[in-house]
């Protein structure tokens, strides 16, 4: 078998680059969706807010300022090629990239070491959460996702009664959306259904990585997403919670197999500043053992 060397320094460099990019450059699909929302929104205040958000994205990119002062807690998704060889501590090389971006990029450091006591800022916005998945190939795909505290706070997980089925699922999503006026709507809702208590929240959050305008490959779930979006927008919460037609830009559902007695559902709420950036690190050399 031929293995290909991935330099840890390249991973650090790429993470630093992506963390900065995610904070400063609004995802093109999100920006396009905000522009589309402007043609739907009827509330004058809602329209004003949407205009500000579109202008904000432009200024952030031009002046390399963060889109939001809450530069978040970072999750890094690593897709590690099975034929890639890494010598050393992959986890630490990712943290080093996050550290560099936050220290050198004038991003806010919002992480405390002892949340139970509410003390000791780590000073560099680490540690980031790191999820590693093995995939085919010999390269490493990286996605950096910073997420703010306000939208994390309204996210929720519930073990629903199996008898409740779709009705209970939709009710729960609506309940979470109804409590999200302060979480900077228009929102993007990632919904995880199934799996288990521990990983359903992960599914919900990963759903936010899907393109705003994509369509669920599973027609049943695509219908559910559309129906939920319509119902959430019927709440009237509107941009910034000031009232209006556009409360959410998208609802994304991810489903996983699950125990017959359980129906875990998680809703990961994202503000309109849904931030992520992806890139790939390719091998620098080939190793023939």
């Amino acid at each position: 078998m031929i293995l290909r060397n991935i330099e840890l320094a390249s991973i650090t460099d790429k993470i630093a680059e992506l963390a900065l990019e995610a904070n400063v450059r609004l995802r093109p699909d999100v920006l396009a969706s905000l522009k589309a929302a402007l043609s739907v929104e009827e509330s004058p205040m809602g329209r004003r807010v949407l205009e500000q958000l579109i202008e904000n994205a432009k200024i952030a990119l031009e002046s390399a300022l963060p889109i939001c002062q809450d530069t978040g807690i970072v999750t890094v998704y690593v897709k590690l090629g099975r034929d890639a060889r890494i010598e050393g501590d992959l986890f630490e090389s990712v943290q080093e990239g996050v550290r560099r971006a936050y220290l050198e990029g004038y991003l806010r450091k919002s992480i405390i070491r002892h949340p139970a006591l509410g003390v000791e800022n780590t000073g560099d916005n680490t540690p980031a959460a790191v999820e590693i998945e093995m995939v085919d190939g010999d390269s490493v795909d990286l996605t950096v996702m910073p997420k703010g505290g306000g939208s994390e706070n309204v996210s929720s997980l519930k073990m629903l009664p199996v008898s409740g089925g779709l009705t209970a699922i939709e009710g729960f999503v609506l309940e979470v959306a109804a409590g999200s006026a302060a979480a900077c709507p228009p929102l993007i809702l990632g919904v995880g259904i199934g799996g288990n208590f521990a990983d359903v929240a992960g599914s919900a959050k990963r759903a936010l990585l899907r393109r705003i305008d994509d369509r669920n490959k599973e027609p049943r779930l695509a219908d559910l997403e559309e129906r939920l979006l319509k119902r959430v927008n019927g709440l009237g919460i509107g941009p910034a919670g000031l009232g209006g037609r556009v409360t959410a830009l998208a609802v994304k559902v991810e489903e996983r197999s699950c125990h017959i007695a359980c129906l875990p559902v998680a809703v990961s709420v994202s503000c309109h500043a849904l931030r992520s950036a992806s890139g790939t690190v390719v091998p620098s050399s080939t190793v023939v053992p």
Partner: protein
Amino acid sequence: MVKEIRLPLTPETARLLRAGDEVGISGTIYAARDVACRRLAELIRSGERLPVDLHDQVIFFAGPTPVPPGRACGAVGPTTSKRMDPYTPELLEAGVRGMIGKGPRSPEVVSSIRRFRAVYFVATGGAAALLSTFVTRCEVFAWPELGPEAIWRLALEAFPAFVAIDIEGGDIFTEGRKGYSSNC
């Protein structure tokens, strides 16, 4: 029409503002969030000296990003006001006339706002690069050891906001939805 407001926020100015008004705020404000607001409330309760005279002041619930070289201010925008609800009645009683934040407030806070004839403004959350262009000066003012939670002093020039809760308790978060929500 945008109503221009010059700080400090006097009772006379506060009286002219109604929920839903679009405003441009100019003058000096203090940015404080969770820990700083809690400390202020504790000092008020124990009758100790505050780092700033709060009379007719406006508190901005915010923690800006570090100031990059060559700029007046880093990215700055409102954080969720609800977390400051427990401290708000004491801050208002100590003289705070206005707050800038995002999101709805508790019924207790709404009644405190009415009682002390204060105003709650909202600025657009997640528009921190845009909002920073209305800040002409920005510095850590007190408790630098709190890092992002220190009190900052900011000079604003026509800073865009909306009146969310007015002196009569008019509340955009309850009134704004009317006409846009549907039963489904």
